[in-house]
């Protein structure tokens, strides 16, 4: 069977599995038995968070980014995992106790301001839209390779698939579907790393074995006289590394579609355990990505570079067709040098199993895993956009009398329009997948992170404060991204991807100073914030703490 058929069959089979589980669960949910006992154990909720979280950026983009950037790429590893510390310690359990379903809703109610909710809804749309450009770009890489066409054509096909997938809608919220997606995703990612580890080091545990390969890479780099892989801050300044690290961490703690997952748990205790399990499952992929990067670089350096240009392996042709790989014999000596290989961050993960000759099944599995990562996250983002537009903006601010049918229609159209517009932007992606996604994180860390942090931990913060904070944060972040990317601005060497640090700082200062200059929030709101200090079953009221004894109810 050809590679194309195997990949296609695996993609169809895994998607059939997700849809099958969704249908099976919907049928079960209607039975009284199931409704009476529907809480999902934290361990499975953790897997579902993992599936939601790991997008095309984690699956397709990250290892490639590390391979190209070396040590500097590790900011993505620490940032995207460290965000769960901020989330689980400072925000998620408290938001769980406050008990609202969406982030704009929390902000609107906690700050008693419809304007704040409207701004939060607009911020949700901007962030989710930016994020989905990265996902579409990722699905373009996978489909482009599958059909051996240009990535732009692949992206267009991805647009149609995502619009269709999001229209299925209901599938998204079903935890067991996401558990299945997580398992497909992680198996697809781990198999090639383990095989490469066996091939190169005879050790089946890549996490322990790739230190050896790192050492050999250092030697190879020295011989070639190129910048060494492990030397820090070669691509950008140390401050850029730290700014990016902060941006990714704070952004994680402020991403609406991730926080929403914590609302589905029942108690603060369950929120803490879900956070811990989620990071364990996410960590499995994140601990493997740097190993993947090291193996890929080693194979490219030792098995591809140095070949005669007329005798390149078969895998190269298909990837050159996608427009993301170029191998040119610039020196004209008939030999392909390491410096003559120009490989895009975005294809490293998908191309490596082919380079390492791991067989049609593993390559097909990678394609299925990557599609699951890109489509599931894109679907969730589209639903976040449509909810913000149809519920928070259209229904609550423009037309409060709208019928349910009309709201649904607005939601559907917003998905179609958002997907098509994001697809058009992704046709000529403004950056690598991880970079585009990093902008979404910068926007989240400039808008939601300060609003949620102060909303939970500082009762004096009020409506005017949060409005000033979110507007300032969004403006500063957007302005910095554009000025850095297109105007060449850089403070302390910080580039576009590190913009969140300025946005968050400006937003916190604006929120605090405007809050202090305006009237304190009502006693009721201040009591509600005090209430978040105590566990689920304690209630704070008028300076006293009460324990709810549900056995009497």
């Amino acid at each position, binding site marked *: 069977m050809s590679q194309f058929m195997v990949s296609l069959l695996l993609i169809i089979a895994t998607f059939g599995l997700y849809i099958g589980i969704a249908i099976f669960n919907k049928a079960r949910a209607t039975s009284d038995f199931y409704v009476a006992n529907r*809480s999902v154990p934290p361990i499975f909720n953790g897997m579902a968070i993992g599936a939601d979280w790991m997008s095309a950026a984690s699956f397709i983009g990250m290892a490639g980014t590390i391979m190209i950037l070396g*040590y500097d790429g*590790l*900011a993505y*590893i*620490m940032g995207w*995992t*460290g965000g*769960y*510390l*901020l989330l*689980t*310690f*400072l925000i998620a359990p408290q938001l769980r*106790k406050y*008990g*609202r*379903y969406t982030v704009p809703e929390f902000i609107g109610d906690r700050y008693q301001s419809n304007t704040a909710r409207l701004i939060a809804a607009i911020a949700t749309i901007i962030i989710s839209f930016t994020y989905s450009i990265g996902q579409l770009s990722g699905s373009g890489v996978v489909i482009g390779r599958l059909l051996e066409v240009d990535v732009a054509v692949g992206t267009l096909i991805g647009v149609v698939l995502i619009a269709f997938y999001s229209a299925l809608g209901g599938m998204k919220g079903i935890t067991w579907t996401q558990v299945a997606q997580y398992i497909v995703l992680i198996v697809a990612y781990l198999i090639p790393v383990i095989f490469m580890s066996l091939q190169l080091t005879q050790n089946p545990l890549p*996490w*322990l074995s790739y*230190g*050896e390969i*790192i050492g050999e890479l250092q030697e190879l780099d020295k011989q070639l006289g190129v910048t060494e892989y*492990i030397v*820090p*801050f070669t691509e950008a300044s*140390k401050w850029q590394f*730290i700014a990016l*690290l902060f941006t990714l961490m704070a952004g994680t703690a402020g991403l609406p579609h991730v926080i929403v997952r914590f609302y589905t748990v*029942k*108690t603060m*205790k*369950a929120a*803490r*355990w879900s*956070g*811990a399990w989620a*990071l*364990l499952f996410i*960590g499995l992929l*994140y*601990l493997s990505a*740097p190993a993947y990067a090291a193996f890929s670089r080693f194979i490219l350096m030792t098995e591809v570079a140095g070949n005669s240009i007329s005798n390149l392996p078969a895998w190269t042709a298909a990837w050159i067709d996608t427009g993301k790989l170029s191998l040119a014999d610039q020196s004209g000596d008939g030999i392909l040098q390491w410096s003559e290989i120009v490989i895009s961050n975005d294809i490293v993960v998908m191309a490596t199993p082919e380079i390492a000759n791991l067989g049609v099944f593993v390559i097909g599995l990678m394609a299925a895993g990557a599609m699951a990562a890109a489509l599931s996250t894109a679907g969730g983002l589209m639903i976040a956009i449509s909810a913000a537009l149809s519920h928070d903006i259209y229904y609550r601010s423009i037309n409060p009398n709208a019928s349910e049918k009309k709201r649904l229609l607005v939601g559907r159209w917003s998905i179609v329009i958002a997907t098509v517009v994001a697809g058009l932007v992704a046709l000529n992606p403004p950056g690598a997948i991880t970079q585009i996604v990093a902008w979404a994180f910068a926007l989240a860390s400039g808008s939601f992170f300060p609003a949620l942090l102060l909303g939970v931990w500082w009762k004096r913060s009020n409506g005017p404060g949060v409005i000033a904070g979110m507007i300032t944060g969004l403006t500063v972040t957007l302005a910095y991204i554009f000025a850095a990317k297109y105007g060449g601005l850089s403070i302390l060497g910080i580039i576009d991807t590190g913009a969140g640090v300025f946005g968050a700082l400006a937003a916190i200062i604006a929120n605090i100073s405007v809050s202090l200059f305006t009237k304190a929030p009502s006693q009721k709101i201040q009591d509600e914030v005090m209430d978040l*200090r*105590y*566990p*689920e*079953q*304690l*209630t704070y009221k008028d*300076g*006293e*703490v*009460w*324990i*709810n*004894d*549900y*056995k009497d*109810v």
Partner: protein
Amino acid sequence: MKKVDKKHADSYFRARVILISCSLAVGFSVSYLVVLLAENLLSITFNGFPLHYYMGAQGAVLTFIILLFLNAIVSDKLDKKYGFIETNKKDISSKKTLTH
């Protein structure tokens, strides 16, 4: 509903704040502090890795995971010690969650 001594409740909150601050301090030192000192760690190796690279690729992530599990365990113990045990999850959540 039974009243809880405010001092008792506040001492619970203080214990939680200490737990959170210590955990975040550890989390920040294995990430930000190591990055700040990266050039000084180049010559130290751990399991074949230069130390700064090891911390970025594995050490920090493993520490984060351990911190979150420790937090979950210690917080449960704290709830128990202060007598705030979640008896019936379903009832608690039905009081707090708004539905549309």
